[in-house]
């Protein structure tokens, strides 16, 4: 998991200057990396109730989608987000809303084979990352099985960056590292491996990993190296 970023071969979204445009770039990278047809993110900021969306769909479908008001009924947005687990679209009820959106989607070459990964933040902010890909159901299931844990992390990563790009929310969401998380980042900055740190602190290396993952999340980092860098720049950890 530590090298999710390298394995996924993705750019570091948090380091890019122009957020809104770069979210689209980031989603396109996710699309190409995993070989899916499209990737979409939609999230709601609970403080100003604003809805933010970023998609890889082409302009025609985006215009049609907006003109028909599909964002009001799209079950991949509304139902799927109420689950805590990723929702394969086969689980969504084939009701009038679903059929309305996906009959048109079909005409634009968009498949109803997909998954939405719901995200919940600590302040009631919610979001979802959707990936869709047509073709063999067998291949789709295999793709999901293999990558779901990566998609989970990416979904939360995109969500955190989109929500925190709003200045008031980012104020609320300053990193609150526990002393254990800080301690583990400090040992990491000293060049210790997870196994070493586990031995030093007399905890299992899996516990070290869980704390590191949590620290990465709180620092909006996909890699441990990034997390250490940010923790140092914030004065939470001393350079090794």
């Amino acid at each position, binding site marked *: *998991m530590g090298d999710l970023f390298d394995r996924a071969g993705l750019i570091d979204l948090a380091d890019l200057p122009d957020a809104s445009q770069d979210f689209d770039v980031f989603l396109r990278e996710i699309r190409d990396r995993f070989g899916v047809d499209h990737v979409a993110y939609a999230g709601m900021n609970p403080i100003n109730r604003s809805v933010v969306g970023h998609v890889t769909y082409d302009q025609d479908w985006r215009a049609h989608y907006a003109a028909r008001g599909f964002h009001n009924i799209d079950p991949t947005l509304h*139902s*799927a987000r*109420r*689950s*805590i*687990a*990723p*929702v394969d679209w086969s*689980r*969504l009820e*084939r*009701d*009038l809303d679903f*059929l*309305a959106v*996906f*009959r048109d989607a079909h005409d634009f070459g968009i498949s109803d084979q997909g998954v939405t*990964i719901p*995200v*919940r*933040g*600590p302040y*009631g902010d919610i979001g979802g990352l959707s990936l869709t890909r047509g073709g063999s159901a067998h291949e789709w299931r295999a793709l999901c099985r293999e990558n*779901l*844990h*990566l*998609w*989970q*992390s990416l*979904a*939360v*990563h995109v969500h955190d960056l989109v929500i925190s790009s709003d200045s008031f929310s980012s104020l609320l969401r300053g990193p*609150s*590292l*526990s*002393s*254990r998380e800080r301690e583990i980042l400090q040992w990491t900055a000293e060049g210790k491996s997870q196994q070493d740190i586990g031995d030093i602190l007399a*905890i*299992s290396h*899996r*516990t070290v990993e*869980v*704390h590191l*993952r*949590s620290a*990465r*999340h*709180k620092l909006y980092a996909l890699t441990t190296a990034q997390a250490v860098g940010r923790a140092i720049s914030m004065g939470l950890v001393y350079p090794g």
Partner: protein
Amino acid sequence: MILIVDALNRHKFPMVLDQMFRLRARVFAGRLGWDVTITDGREEDQFDALDPAYVIGLDESGNVVACVRALQTTGPHMLSDVFHAILDGEPPLRSATLWESTRFCVDTERLGRGRARGSVSHATSELMLGAVEYAMRSGISDVVTVIDPVMDRVLKRSGNAPYDYVGRTVQMGKVAALAGLLDCTEERAARIREVAGIKGEVFLTDEEALALPAIAAAAPRKSALETYCDEQIAEARNDKERTAALRLKAALSDRIRSHSKVGA
């Protein structure tokens, strides 16, 4: 057998959820004496309003015999908002691939002794297995579980021992509470299966659960009109026919509803 109920399918299983909240009331307020709020014989708290997922153990008739609740640690959850004493004032763990499990309980009145199917021991193991496998299928790598020392011992003898603990054991009213970490891996699932002798798939599909006698019997009786509409929907051969059938049912919804009220 294990049924997953969340915000997407809970409308299909009102009786199952009702039984679950009543079981929680009997266990947590009754047997364990926790400081929980009971309303109309049901134990529900603010986290049940946040669309959690419930992993529910059913017996062969479809009665609830065990349950546990799962929440994402990125959002509001019990360790961050209620059990922070366990963390000694430290901020909670938050991670996309870490879930929190709470309110694990088993119906010791309905179930028998021993280790066979229908025993407390079997239902406990099956629920643990269901929780681990559901998390794995969802791309989750670890679960942090808030438990009491008795449950901690149950986990250990079920092949499901925490690999570590976070925070410390604290006294919460009459009981002690602590938080254990469980990896969601094939190895753990295999150990639980081995100890309990569970083989094969433990999950029920929604359709299989709805066909169980206790659940089927509790389903609201449909009027002839609604039955007709549902048949039309089920028999639709393509999206166009299905849309037409759904529109018909929507157009008749007032009559369907008032009729079924009279019927009930």
